[in-house]
């Protein structure tokens, strides 16, 4: 039982982090808080991927030891960490930043128009404008 928990507890922590982010995205009424929830959700997925690449034992990061251009010792796959999740997550981090940037630009436009960032107040103002305008 303890063995089982030790071999899986990192995945459980990331799932709990994802759910915190998902709750913030859906339930909070302030638009900036929703954005922060989105960031937490994406960060938890990135952590999940990176933890796939870990190998226990006497392993080192995926940089091959060389000395003046020659290999120090022969390359064996069991001596190095898995490089592929790191590669994928470099791209995913950039995608997350880009989405946050565009969302913040959209938030600036919303603030210019409604003077508030609370979703309930924005919907009330929009309803009022539609009634007086239509």
């Amino acid at each position, binding site marked *: 039982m303890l063995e089982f928990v*030790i*071999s*899986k*507890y*990192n*995945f*459980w922590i990331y*799932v*709990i982090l*994802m*759910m915190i982010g*998902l*709750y913030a995205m*859906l*339930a909070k009424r302030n638009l900036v808080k929703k954005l922060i929830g989105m960031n937490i959700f994406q960060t938890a997925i990135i952590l999940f991927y990176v*933890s*796939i*690449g*870990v*190998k*226990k*034992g006497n*392993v080192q990061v*995926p*940089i*091959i*030891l*060389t000395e003046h251009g020659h*290999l120090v010792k022969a*390359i*064996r*796959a*069991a001596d*190095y960490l*898995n*490089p*592929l*999740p*790191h*590669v*994928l997550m*470099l*791209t995913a981090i*950039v*995608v997350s*930043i*880009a*989405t946050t*940037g*565009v969302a913040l*630009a*959209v938030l*600036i*436009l919303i603030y210019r128009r409604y003077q508030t960032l609370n979703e309930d107040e924005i919907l009330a103002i929009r309803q009022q404008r539609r009634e007086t305008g239509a």
Partner: protein
Amino acid sequence: MKVIILIFVILAGGLLLYGTLDMPGWGDPHSPASTWVSPGYIEQAYEKTETPNIVTAVLADYRSYDTMGETTVIFTAAIACALLLRGAVGNRRKEDE
């Protein structure tokens, strides 16, 4: 409303946790992720690309297309922000006259 969302989030979390029960353990050196594609990268990256940093070799050589996609994502985000916040580009001198 918040209670409904809380229950939904707990159920979704439960589904994800159910999925982790069968996964290979954390750091298992015999898991499929460590024994199918990545040993090929580790063992052949130095002789094929002469780069000691394997992550750089994969990112810039084997999967360079993904890196081009990532640069494109940054460009698209920059243009989207410029379109939304700045607006008018071009013909500015003619408009001032």
